[in-house]
């Protein structure tokens, strides 16, 4: 059985091709490219990726417009059925705006766009996305964002931590995120949002390969399940 994946492109997405290539390279299988105005998704998907970029020019709030586009209804239904959904950077912002993940991503505390490799610490090594990492492992993944400052109220943060739903933390100061959270999972563990770009570190030519394990772990869990 081969993985069936979809990468959604919104007007202003700019990491959609990188995401599709990363999935093709590491996961293999079929990768469908889906336009935001499409009302439906291909049948029998295993995995949906929402890429980085500046959907709708970040109008109103980053991700706010994309979260309400037609295809997101289909994404929400697929997520409810248990299909794996990964949102990276703007994709993470879209998932929080759509209510598929808790919290919100606010302007970076330093007000600057941050574009560099950052050190992360793996906080969860049991999810379908993180099983190829070890808990506490230090990895290096690039970030490139202006609105990556994760906010949620203390009760929500406590719940996320208590339920093991923090997937990655920043191991250095990056954007002011609450409790250094860089990526969170939904309650069922099939939706992950993260600001760092794993698809940008899948082969040495990109400067590192620490993102590769995320896709490798995902395909092993979804295809051999």
């Amino acid at each position, binding site marked *: 059985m081969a993985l069936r994946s979809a990468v959604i492109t919104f007007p202003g997405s700019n990491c959609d091709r990188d995401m599709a290539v990363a999935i093709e390279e590491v996961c293999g299988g079929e990768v469908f490219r889906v336009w935001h105005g499409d009302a439906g998704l291909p049948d029998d998907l295993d995995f949906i990726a929402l890429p980085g970029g500046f959907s709708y020019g970040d109008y*109103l*709030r980053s991700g*706010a417009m994309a979260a*309400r586009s037609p295809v997101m209804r289909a994404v929400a239904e697929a997520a409810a059925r248990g299909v794996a959904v990964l949102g990276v950077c703007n994709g993470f912002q879209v998932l*929080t*705006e759509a209510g598929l993940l*808790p*919290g*919100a991503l*606010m*302007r*970076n*505390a*330093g*007000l600057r766009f941050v574009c560099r490799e950052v050190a992360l610490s793996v906080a969860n090594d049991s999810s379908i996305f993180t099983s190829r990492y070890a808990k506490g492992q230090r990895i290096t993944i690039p970030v490139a964002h202006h609105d990556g*400052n994760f*906010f*949620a109220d203390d009760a929500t943060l406590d719940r996320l931590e208590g339920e093991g739903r923090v997937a990655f933390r920043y191991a250095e100061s990056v954007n*002011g995120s609450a409790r250094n959270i860089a990526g969170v999972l939904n309650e069922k563990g099939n939706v992950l949002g993260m600001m760092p770009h794993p698809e940008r570190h899948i082969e040495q030519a990109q400067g590192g390969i620490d993102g590769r394990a995320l896709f490798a772990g995902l395909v092993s869990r979804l295809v051999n399940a």
Partner: protein
Amino acid sequence: MSGIPSSTSKVRVYVSLKNGVLDPQGRAIQHAIEGLGFSGVEDVRAGRLIELEVDASVTDAALDEIANKLLANMVIENYRIERV
């Protein structure tokens, strides 16, 4: 092309950050005010004003829904609706 019909009215929706949510932009504005030589500005919070032109069919309940479903992100923001 015919412009806005006269039967419409203006609604203003003010979106502001909730208390307790840090506002780095507000803080930067405050620093800039200090930099201009003004003293005594103790705090600055930046928000957003959205003006809607609506006809008589748009109820208060609908405006409320528009505001909390789209115009404001209720995780971090509050809103206030004002019919002008």
